[in-house]
């Protein structure tokens, strides 16, 4: 099984000169290529601890860098820069500034669990990816990803009513991310479904927009979950040395019992 190598030499640090004469000797061309050295000095010694304090990151210390996770990774096959083994290495070494170079793609883990299946050390790399993406957002290094906005919309509906209604999740998610609902392919998709069942389809769409499905006997569970989530958020912020959250739109909704729904 091949281990996916990650070169620490950055392309922009490789220097070659088309025309260079040193001490009267012509050293033009690629054979005189050299690598600009770089020094990493801003270690974050608490990085591993912080990731481990977030859900999913608990077992990062077990990693012995075999690379089975990256080898098995679904997203790595599409984008070779998506490299869980390398990120776990950086986190364990405390190399925060290096990790920042990939901050905008870490959230793209699709939770297929192939890494967790392959890992011989039970690191649960999928969990570490989620914890790292969460850490980046809590620390303000990245904006909330589209995936986080989806998770929040979904979870808020589940906590409020016990169930979700897919149409509502999709509509609200598109609104949160500022995307138009009338995208070519979605319209085509709706057309293809509607082709065979025009009346029933219309009725179901209309009803789901009006009547929100909800679980009976749910209100006490809703309150209990809401207070548990608020308590955990507080704990996580403390572990990361952060103050009280700025009440952004979605956070305010997540911590307030939303009994009447949207």
């Amino acid at each position, binding site marked *: 099984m091949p281990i996916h190598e990650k070169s620490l030499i950055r392309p922009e640090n490789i220097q070659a000169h088309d025309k260079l004469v040193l001490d009267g000797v012509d050293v033009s061309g690629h054979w005189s290529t050299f690598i600009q050295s770089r020094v990493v000095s801003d270690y974050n010694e608490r990085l591993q601890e912080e990731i481990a304090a977030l859900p999913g990151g608990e077992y990062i210390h077990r990693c012995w860098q075999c690379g089975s996770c990256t080898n098995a990774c679904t997203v790595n096959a599409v984008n070779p820069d998506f490299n869980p083994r390398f990120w776990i290495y950086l986190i364990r070494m405390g190399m925060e500034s290096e990790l920042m170079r990939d901050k905008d793609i870490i959230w793209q883990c*699709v939770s297929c669990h192939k890494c967790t299946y392959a890992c011989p050390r039970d690191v649960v790399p999928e969990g570490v990816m989620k914890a790292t993406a969460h850490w980046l957002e809590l620390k303000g290094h990245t904006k909330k990803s589209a995936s986080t906005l989806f998770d929040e919309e979904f979870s808020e509906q589940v906590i409020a009513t016990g169930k979700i209604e897919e149409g509502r999740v999709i509509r609200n998610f598109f609104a949160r991310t500022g995307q138009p609902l009338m995208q*070519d*392919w979605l319209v085509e998709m709706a057309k*293809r479904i509607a082709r065979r069942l025009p009346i029933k389809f219309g009725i179901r769409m209309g009803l789901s927009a009006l009547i929100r499905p909800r679980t009976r006997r749910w209100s006490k569970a809703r309150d209990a979950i809401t207070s548990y989530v608020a308590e955990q958020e507080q704990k996580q912020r403390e572990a990361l040395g952060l103050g009280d959250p700025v009440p952004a739109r979605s956070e305010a909704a997540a911590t307030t019992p939303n009994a009447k729904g949207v």
Partner: protein
Amino acid sequence: MSSTDVTDKKVRYQRVAYYPGCALEGTGHAYNQSTRAVGKALGLKLDEVRDWNCCGAMEVKNIDPKVQTYLSSRVMSIAANEMHAPVVMAPCNGCYHNLKKAEYDLAHDASSREVVDRISAKAGHAPYRAGQLETIHVLDWLKHGVGEDELRRRVSKSLEGLKVANYYGCMYTRPRHIFPEKDQGAGSESTSKPHFMDDLLAAAGAENVEFPLKTACCGGAHTLSDSDISTKLVLNILRAAEAAGAEVIATECPTCHSGLEMHQVRAEKVLGERTKVKILYFTQLLGIALGLSARSVGAHENASDPLELLKKKGLA
């Protein structure tokens, strides 16, 4: 697996608690309809879990994994403590996975037990305890509750000549540790090369093609939030199925199913990549083989529009 175990399951699975989940009341409507229809045709009984809630799907765990454990445990608590059912069956891979995961966590992790106990007490119901209930997938239900021999006898419209790629997805087999009954030798399901769906469809007469991406990921978790990657992953699956000679991809999960359908359209619209393979729930195919009409298993609801193919094959 001993022969008594097989007989036990045959008896135990005749009547089970049924947890459809949110997707089966929405985009997975045809899966719900065809699962119920197949059960009825085979004389199996389903009792829907009372006042069920969402299991947490792929999303709630990213807000907090233990909330997901609680959500799944509430469903199991109702099935076990209020309905006194020994078995709960979930056709959705996501629901099935989450119930299995909750079962594992509650058996092995004290802090998960503590959180579930605390929230259950406040919510006013008995907490679920590991071991009270057996969680199974619709595949287990049909494979062990009916079996291939019985199914073969009941088939009235053989799927003969229909080339099928069996697609199981991620949540049915991974991670391995939450499925202790899998990988237990002959007769049990395999996590690396699952075969229950292949077995059932073969018994219904279908010709299963050699499909290498049985447990590949469709990108379902990011179907809408990272559509470009999902489209690439789905296109890969569709192309591999076509290359293997499949006319139909049989699915067993509403998220995979609608992901495949949506991104088949998206690949065509956005990338100009057209694929012709049809996508059907395996329960729809089984229902048709049992003599049910294509409409009564909801085949007209499928976006990939399989009716023409089914007509051509004499199945609709």
